């Protein structure tokens, strides 16, 4: 049986509607029965039909009456707490779907920004990005930076005293790593030396902006000049997480 997408609307065609009705009613009864057996619970289903006077009932007329009696014996509040009609139910479905949509959009955005970050690492220019993009990019850099930091700490703890410890199972073999090493982070010419990070200065990011602009616009990788490297987590990052509330 092919799975066709069904439009959630009343079927105008009489024959099609009748066929669908019969098929779905049967399916519903069967599934209610399964639910009851699998979970060992009591249930009943009543389906009225425009084609016959008597409704179709599961498990049986008697069984349904029993379930209804049990239902009516409960307090009004217990009865209505989880009672729902079409309107209420469809609204619930809409709310749930909207939440899933929001989550999916956020996930997709994160993936996209990640891509931007990796492309920028190999030299693709940052020009053309909007402030929102830059903000998100900063957030992603922050987040990944923290992960890297943690992982580095972990690895260093595992092999105490040796900072030059052999990397644990890099996926890529050494040959291609060297090759890619050149292609990688183009904007860091000092990469060959694998310099340890300079002492972090607790400078807020905007201080650079307020300083007199005497440095050139090009990348200054001289080790003499203390770089205002961004301290992780302290002070609080300028990129507020406004896109990901």
């Amino acid at each position, binding site marked *: 049986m092919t799975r066709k997408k069904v439009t959630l609307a009343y079927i105008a065609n009489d024959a099609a509607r009748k066929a669908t009705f019969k098929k779905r009613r049967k399916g519903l009864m069967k599934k209610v029965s399964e639910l009851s*057996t699998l979970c060992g619970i009591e249930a009943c*289903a009543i389906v009225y039909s425009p084609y016959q006077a008597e409704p179709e009932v599961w498990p049986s007329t008697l069984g349904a009456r029993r379930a209804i009696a049990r239902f009516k014996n409960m307090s009004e509040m217990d009865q209505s707490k989880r009672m729902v009609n079409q309107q209420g139910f469809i609204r619930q479905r809409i709310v749930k779907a909207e939440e899933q949509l929001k989550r999916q959009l956020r996930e997709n955005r994160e993936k996209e920004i990640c891509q931007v970050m990796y492309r920028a690492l190999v030299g693709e220019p940052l020009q053309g990005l909007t402030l929102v993009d830059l903000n998100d990019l900063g957030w992603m850099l922050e987040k990944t930076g923290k992960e890297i930091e943690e992982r580095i700490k972990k690895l260093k703890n595992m092999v105490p005293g040796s900072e030059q410890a052999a990397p644990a199972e890099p996926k890529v073999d050494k040959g291609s790593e060297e090759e890619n090493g050149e292609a990688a982070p183009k904007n860091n010419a000092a990469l060959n030396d694998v310099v340890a990070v300079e002492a972090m200065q607790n400078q807020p990011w905007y201080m650079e902006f307020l300083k007199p602009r005497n440095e050139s616009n090009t990348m200054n990788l001289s080790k003499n000049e203390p770089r205002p490297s961004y301290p992780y987590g302290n002070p609080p990052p300028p990129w507020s997480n406004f896109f990901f509330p």
Partner: protein
Amino acid sequence: MGKKPSLGRQKIVIARIPKKNHLQVTFSKRRSGRFKKASELCTLSGVDVGIIVFSLASKVFSFGHPEVELIIDRFLARHNLPPLDTSAHHQLFEAHRSVNLRELNMILTQVLDELEVERKHGERLDVMRKASQRQCWWEAPVDELGLCELEQLRTSMEEMKMNVEKLTSKLMATLLLQMVCHFQGLILD
């Protein structure tokens, strides 16, 4: 965050589920599924339906169209005839309700369609990422990188952070300047 792929459709033995947690989860999902199917039946065929389900903790869940209580009354009365109120007021009420339901279903369909689009987009992004991971070692998940690689990566990322900061400052400054000019313009007018 990667989602663990669900096991998908598996054949289930139709017998009481032994494990308690499993049972609770199954109950929740299937009950919800039944209501969904009942709701679709009502929408597609325009019939009246009622379902009552008791949980193991003796809580009761019910779904009914038009209302659970109406279905119960009708069933117990054994007349099996739909309420014969053909007054204009009643008909108007019914008309209102169907329009309302139609609109709700349309909104639901729209949201579900959007969701599907975004899901497919997400899958495409995943495929692209996997493909580029094969060629670029630095795109691999952090957990798979070695110490040297991590330190390299960290340095490059800090470079980029500085560039991003610079560019952000520049853009913000431009924006502020534009705003100031705009307001000055307004005042001078």
